[in-house]
């Protein structure tokens, strides 16, 4: 029982991290109808910037305090992600308004290639560490309830908390601020939003900025877990089933979907994996999402698809 719970909680926390990456997809898709395959590259790029500046800043300026260095590196990385967002809107999206979904998808793949290339040229292509002082040691919990208690990784737990906090902040931003309202208006209907005076281009920049921040947070958390390396870009592929499970246009969907996929992956790997030779984590999420789509084509919380001729 306690092993099952451990797996379950591990899955939930991994799921929280997936939803963090998935959020980036959903934000951009909602506001601009672009399925942003570059999200993974953005995670890698942001994490690389963060890791390298945290390393470079003390060497350049002589800041001894690691917290200060981390904070400054974070600020610089945010600025870089904002610059990326602005450039993407200015140089790519603006010229591709009203193109087909597949064309936009391919354009974001082009952006992904570019970011991967630039990131590794500027910041180097080794494995880097991000050390933001996350505790690494596991703790025992609920020892009074179960015999032996449950082993929980503190780092995962904190990461899940950060992810939850970010999700909450984003929800507030979307629901309560004027900019958030404008974002939702654009998501509903581009033309209508434009006709009441919402500047589409600026909204897109904002959305890409927000997606850049989620990418940075995801990059920091994943990076401090696994080290910053090229494989970080493939996190996006792991988060895709989350997005379609939850619905491409739904923020809560990204979170619930992330939790379902996280738990499903872990449980399947532990209980089903040994039967078929292991390593099924990668595709299990996709098959789960696929089976789900057969019954509910718009995802858990997606808007109902209405066809008109």
């Amino acid at each position, binding site marked *: 029982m306690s092993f099952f719970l451990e797996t379950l909680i591990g899955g939930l926390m991994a799921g929280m991290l997936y939803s963090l990456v998935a959020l980036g997809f959903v934000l951009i898709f909602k506001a601009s109808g672009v*399925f942003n395959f570059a999200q993974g590259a953005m995670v890698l790029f942001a994490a690389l910037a963060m890791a390298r500046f945290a390393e470079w800043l003390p060497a350049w300026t002589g800041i001894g305090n690691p917290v200060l260095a981390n904070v400054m590196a974070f600020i610089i990385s945010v600025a870089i992600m904002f610059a990326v967002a602005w450039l993407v809107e200015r*140089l*790519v999206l603006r*010229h*591709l308004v009203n*193109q*087909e*979904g*597949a*064309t936009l*998808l*391919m*354009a974001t*793949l*082009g*952006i*992904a*290639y*570019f*970011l*991967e*290339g*630039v990131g*590794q*040229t500027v910041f180097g*292509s080794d494995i880097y560490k991000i050390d933001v002082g996350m505790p690494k040691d596991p703790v025992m919990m609920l020892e009074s309830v179960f015999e032996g208690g449950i082993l929980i990784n503190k780092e995962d737990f904190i990461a899940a908390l950060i992810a939850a906090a970010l999700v909450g902040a984003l929800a507030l931003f979307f629901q309560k601020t004027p900019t958030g309202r404008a974002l939702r208006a654009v998501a509903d209907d581009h033309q209508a939003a434009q006709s009441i005076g919402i500047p589409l281009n600026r909204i897109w920049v904002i959305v890409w900025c927000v997606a850049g921040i989620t990418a940075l947070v995801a990059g920091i958390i994943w990076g401090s877990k696994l080290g910053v390396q090229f494989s970080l870009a493939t996190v996006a*592929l792991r988060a*895709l*089933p989350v*997005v*379609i499970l939850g619905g*491409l246009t739904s923020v809560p969907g990204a979170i619930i979907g992330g939790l379902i996929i996280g738990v499903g992956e872990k449980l399947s790997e532990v209980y089903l994996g040994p039967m*078929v*030779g*292991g*390593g*099924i984590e*990668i*595709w299990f999420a*996709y*098959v789960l*999402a*696929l089976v789900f*789509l*057969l019954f509910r*084509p*718009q*995802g858990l919380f997606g808007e109902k698809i209405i*066809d*008109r*001729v």
Partner: protein
Amino acid sequence: MLYRENGQFKSSYAADQQIFPIVQDRWAILGIVAFAFAAVPLLANEYLLSAILVPFLILALAALGVNLLVGYCGQITLGAGAFMAVGAYAAYNFFIRVDGMPLLAALLLGGLTAAAVGIVFGVPSLRVRGLYLAVATLAAQFLADWAFLRIKWFTNDSPSGSVSVANLHVLGWKIDSPVDRYLLCLAVLVVFALLAKNMVRSAIGRQWMAIRDMDVAAEVIGIRPMFAKLSAFAVSSFIVGVAGALWGFIHLSSWEPAAFSVDRSFQLLFMVIIGGMGSIMGSFFGAAFIVVLPIFLNQFLPWLGGLVGLAVSTATVSHAEFMIFGVLIVFFLIVEPHGLARLWSIGKEKLRLWPFPH
């Protein structure tokens, strides 16, 4: 002046329904095919044949298959690499496990297996479409990656996980030198391109296009969406599977599942979009672009670095390749979102009037 159809009257139904209604087109295509069969093997050296032309021909075939599905039937797929893998491994198993299996039969059986798998993974297309479908087809990709890595039966229990084939014959013709490989791939490509060209102007191709343009409207006028979509998946996967088998047997001759990774799927979709969706010709343009560009960059960048007196390391070159590739793709999409095939048809329109302004 040279390229115009004035005076070419069609006096029979057969003449009206030719694949290439304009005489000049007909001769140009015949000329290109004759050149490819007769002159290229004499002119090209070994490197050109085995590093550029053979990959180009095989990937053009795969892109053709993907284009039938994405460009003609409007079902976006990111699982093309998986169907290539299924084709390659199925052909391998037929070839190895059945005594005296001829090469061509193994290739076709590989294609048929891929078609069957394609139909299974095409089922979600009946419920979801667009980007949801694209992600759903990624399931095929990851499942195939896993299956060919973990299930030992598929790789004939080879300890390293890689499989290889040798002693390839087609009707007594030994496929040995690069020229033989080139000619075999070319022959297969020409046959399939002709079939595809005919298919998209037949009833079934028109059904696909109707589904692509508006599936609800197509259903209302009596097109069965299930049949149309699944047949598109089957035909596309068949062609992609044959291409995968050729890629394994002829180009690599010894391969691992990594040869058909998700990057391959993206690459094929790139070819279709850059070449032009819904155009047979576009598949060739796209394949040429994607195959030649990395090789060109690989050669060109160190040369450029040497010109300005900069020693460029191989790592930098590969990163710069990524960057330039990404930029060029975005550039092409912005300049001509309908692909190189569209540029080609604009060129032809201009040529019809030339040298007069209108």
